[in-house]
């Protein structure tokens, strides 16, 4: 997975940087910049992965108390709002990256133009939109992974993602839904 690789890269670079500074009084000039760009890429790619794995946090307090038809209408309004957000961000980031292309300046320590490093942004927001449509389609057609709204509150913070603590938390999620 791309996001796992970026996380491993960031952790190692930062750790090695500390070791180098103390053990050898040296370091890489590019490490900080490379880490922050890796961080940005992880977030930008990760946000659509979160839609796919149903990990985004939303407040479900109101929607889960609505009757089915109303919930459906509100759900689609929420989807429309989210897609509007994606559209705005695709446009805004495309203009932003376009300016960097025109400017043609380079990153501080990495020998690449800045637009190469930020160019992922409009693509990432377009991908986010596509994933949202896909999730809504799944919900509407009632296929596998049906969900009532765009996200489950706190799903990603639930400990059932932890390696060893699997069973009890799954049970907790089950029961709280019943």
């Amino acid at each position, binding site marked *: *997975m791309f*996001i*796992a690789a970026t996380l*491993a890269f*960031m*952790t190692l670079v*930062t*750790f090695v*940087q*500390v070791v180098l500074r103390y053990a050898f009084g040296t370091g890489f000039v590019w490490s*900080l910049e490379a*880490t*922050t*760009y890796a*961080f*940005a890429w*992880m*977030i930008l790619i*990760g*946000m659509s992965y*979160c839609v796919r794995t149903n*990990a*985004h*946090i*939303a*407040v479900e*307090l*109101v*929607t889960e108390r609505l009757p089915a038809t109303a919930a459906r209408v*509100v*759900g689609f*309004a*929420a989807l429309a709002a*989210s897609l509007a*957000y994606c559209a*705005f*961000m695709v446009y*805004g*980031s495309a*203009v*932003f990256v376009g300016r960097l292309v025109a400017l043609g300046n380079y990153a501080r320590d990495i020998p690449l133009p800045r637009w190469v490093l930020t160019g992922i*942004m409009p693509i990432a927001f377009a991908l986010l939109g596509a994933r949202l449509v896909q999730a809504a389609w799944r919900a509407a057609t009632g296929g596998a992974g049906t969900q009532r709204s*765009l996200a489950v*509150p*706190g799903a990603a*913070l*639930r*400990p059932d*993602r*932890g*390696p*060893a*603590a699997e069973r*009890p*938390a799954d049970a*907790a*999620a*089950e*029961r*709280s839904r019943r």
Partner: protein
Amino acid sequence: MSGLFLLGALFLCLAAGVPVAIALGLASIATMLLFSDQSLAALAQRFFSATQVYPLLAIPFFILAGQLMTSGGVAKRMIAFANALVGRFRGGLGMAALLACAFFAAVSGSSPATVVAVGSIMIAGMVRSGYSKAFGAGLICNAGTLGILIPPSIVLVVYGAVTETSVGDLFMAGVLPGISLGAALLVTVAIVARRRNLPRQPPVDLRTLLVTARDAGWGLALVAIVLGGIYAGVFTPTEAAAVSAVYALLVVLLVYRDMPLAAVPRVLVDSARVTAMLMFIIANAYLFAFVLTTEQIPQAISAWIIDLGLPAWAFLLAVNLLLLAAGAFMEPTSVILILAPILFPIAMELGIHPVHLGIVMTVNLEIGLVTPPVGLNLFVTSGVAEMPVTAVIRAALPWLGVLLAMLAVVTYVPGLSLALPELLGAR
């Protein structure tokens, strides 16, 4: 006007079930398009620059360290050590559960994970020794919240980044209130144990105590490395986080041997996903804060509050009520991200210390984790203890009283938060 629109749009989106991140972003974009002449490109640039904020880089590393430390084996070692320490006292098993929660919450950084890991072992154990299930569930549910106050804490990192407050100072400031909260809960356990005549555990010999201490010490050293490293000036909080992640990996793989090497990629994916989810909210919260600032909204509110002649103590009371309400509906990081940019400038006008405000907000959000309707710990406890949520809410209620009393202390005794960072030379 623009302020009302911004908040109105935000609440409308949140109520409709739009993910928190997108609700923040969309409300900001709409306000900006309608009321000011900033361009969408400026907002996109702002979004990207939020991902380049150096203190926020600590978040993925702390999440990774926590995920690595969330194995069942780590919890068992913490419990064994806690039991050896306090098991001999009346109600010892309850005290041990509380201590184990504090230890585990400190290294895992996650309240719900603590409830699952410690609760799944200790609640059954307490019931077997003659405690009521409600006692065990209520205790674990509340003790699990200590994790967001005891450093390293992601909530404090987020507060520090948003308000440009030193993360190192915030971590140090969290120590004494965290210990006091734990102590208050401990005293409560002792009182209840005396009244209900709860059993003691057989005392352990010194050898067992030392062995369990060494076992648990490998994990607990993580907190020492982070705090010690930051304060000795060895590394920045962000570097401390990366070092703690590598340390956690080595301990779990080589010392504890709880996790096969093959499980590491899975942990990386999970950590990266949780980070992306949180950072997506945070980046959008930067847009929100940006619009708040360009529209001068906090300034307007603070001018209004100062006109009212509201003293600092009354403002803090209002902050507490607001946060308790918000914390009952949203998870801690989202609340910090939405409210800190609004409350912080006002608090500064009133002469409240930025570090103190951060700790007060965090304690409020701890309480939010155990108050319905969205108290995450309540649901997790209900699963672990196999009790209906309503029964857990009732069981948690008396402990909630202790937390509220401590909130009052933390709010009105700034010294409790500020003494340690000041002692260590903070401004």
